[in-house]
């Protein structure tokens, strides 16, 4: 095994251990507390919060992926070609909306709790995936798409057999960006009472307890890094399999 992989597995093991039995790590966070504050957040189980956090991110990401890839396919077909310039500029404009604003604006429509967070993450996650899917589907090697037409593939066979498989690594890079943003942004959801790890951080901000802020931030940050690494590895494997070079960060 490579040292990098060992380090990641150790970090993952530590993360899981901390989430399952946070009390046994109290000594790590004790120095951050003052005036006898608790070192570990116990109002809610860290495990439940983590599961809920990841569930929200997963649902939002799956939904954004389906819609974003679907739209990218639509605007790159002859039928939807008219929408291509518009969709590009919408993706560009959409990215200027701050997540907090999206979240806050979703509240009047959806009320407090998980729903506005899901919607905010879903909308915010659409953009990187859409942009990458568009890049992936519009920058295929011309000789390959030409050959696919030339051998007599139908539109559908070309899409499923050639275009999507070749665009997958680039789309995956978009999903990776989207997930990493969502994992961090989901914490803000706790300001509108969603059940995420942000709850721990906000409890820390309200009671001025650094230990809480640190443990919430640490769990979220480490999760984001691990997910980022895992998806990058998957991308590299796919790229190597298709003999392509990496084109997108």
């Amino acid at each position, binding site marked *: 095994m490579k040292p990098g992989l060992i380090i990641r597995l150790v970090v993952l093991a530590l993360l899981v251990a901390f989430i399952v039995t946070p009390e046994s790590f109290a000594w790590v966070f004790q120095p951050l507390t003052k005036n006898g504050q608790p070192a570990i957040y116990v109002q809610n189980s860290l495990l439940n919060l983590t599961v809920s956090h990841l569930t929200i991110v997963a649902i939002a990401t799956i939904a954004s992926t389906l819609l974003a890839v679907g739209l990218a396919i639509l605007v790159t077909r002859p039928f939807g070609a008219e929408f291509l310039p518009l969709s590009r500029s919408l993706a560009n404009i959409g990215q200027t909306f701050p*997540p907090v604003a999206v979240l806050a604006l979703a509240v009047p429509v959806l009320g407090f709790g998980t729903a506005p967070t899901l919607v905010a993450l879903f909308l915010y996650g659409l953009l990187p995936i859409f942009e990458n899917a568009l890049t992936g589907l519009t920058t295929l090697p011309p000789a390959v798409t030409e050959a696919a037409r030339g051998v007599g593939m139908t539109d559908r066979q070309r899409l499923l057999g050639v275009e999507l498989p070749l665009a997958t690594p680039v789309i995956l890079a978009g999903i990776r960006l989207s997930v990493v943003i969502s994992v961090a942004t989901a914490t803000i959801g706790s300001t509108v009472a969603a059940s995420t790890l942000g709850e721990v951080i906000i409890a820390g901000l309200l009671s001025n307890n650094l230990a809480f802020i640190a443990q919430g931030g640490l769990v979220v940050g480490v999760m984001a890094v691990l997910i980022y690494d895992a998806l990058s590895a998957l991308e590299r494997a796919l790229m190597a399999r298709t003999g392509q070079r990496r084109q997108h960060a």
Partner: protein
Amino acid sequence: MTDAAIAAPTRSFAVDKLGVLIAALAAIAAFLPFAAFRANRIVLGEAKGLFAALPGWEAAALAIVLAAGIGIALFRTPTLWRLATSLVVLALLFVAIGHAGTFLTPPGDKIARVSPGAGFWLLIFAFALLAADAIARLKLKPWTRIGVLAAVALFFAVLLGSGTLNDLSILREYANRGDTFWREAQTHLALALGSLAAATVAGIPIGILCHRSDAWRAPVLNVLNAIQTIPSIALFGLLIAPLAWVAANIPGASAVGISGIGAAPAMVALFAYSLLPVVANTVVGLDGVPPAANDAAKGMGMTDWQRLVTVEFPLAFPVILTGIRIVLVQNIGLATIAALIGGGGFGVFVFQGVGQTAMDLVLLGAVPTVALAFAAAVVLDAIVEMVSPKDTRRD
């Protein structure tokens, strides 16, 4: 060239697909409230359709204008017409919603609230789509785009200055806290621009270092990447302690405004988030300098420094500027989080609003934030295009 590259037929009465979408959105909007009336700030709203929200003749006039706008959108009409139509309809919608505020508010009533309804927002969205499509198709020059943005800003300045919108709930909130609003606006801008300036000054040299030294590149970029994964509210919070320590222990620190809570940790956090895009784009930009240009420069006997200043940096500049664009837009959004640790900015209204379930207050914070971020994106995109070599195609 494939057949798809050939322009679509331009028969005069062909239906435009985007027009169909816009017509569908407008049709849905017809069944949604144009405005909502509430007896006070907190109670549930009472939906008002277009004809209930405006005096009869005015509602009828607006309906006719909307129908005409949809007609122009629905058929294949010249792009410039479509742009003009969308802008006129959008402007009239804003004037109309202001009038709806005045019309629905009982005279002298200071606590009644009128806010735009879902139907209004959907109409705005539909015609904004038309405008965005027309602008994308016209492929406007950078200066023209900035000009359009300035015209839109001027329109809103006049509209707000004339008091047309004063009876809308969001401006009621503004009226209650006009002083605070401008103070928080200043803080917001100071946070976003200050951290950007610091990140640019620090990030470009770090980027040059990473470009020239492989030993530095991986560790620096990895650390900056890791910072990005820390949730913003946690990073803001974690900086409270070290800055409080600095304020308490370093002479003069608190005198220059450093303290544990407030703007200082927010500024440091925004700076930390800003470094990655600046550094990474500097590295990418410098990496992208054609080896032939560098070789030629070396061949002519330029020193490292001369090569950097006269060849590498000018060629990498558009990419670096793109990094700065990303940072500015991102910081304008992230600065809202500063309010959670007492750092001020538009986030103050957003989080107060969320806390009081007063959506008008949320809008008072969110709308200027989105508008600022959007304007920053338009202006910087235009500048990036102006400094980019002409042959890099933009589509």
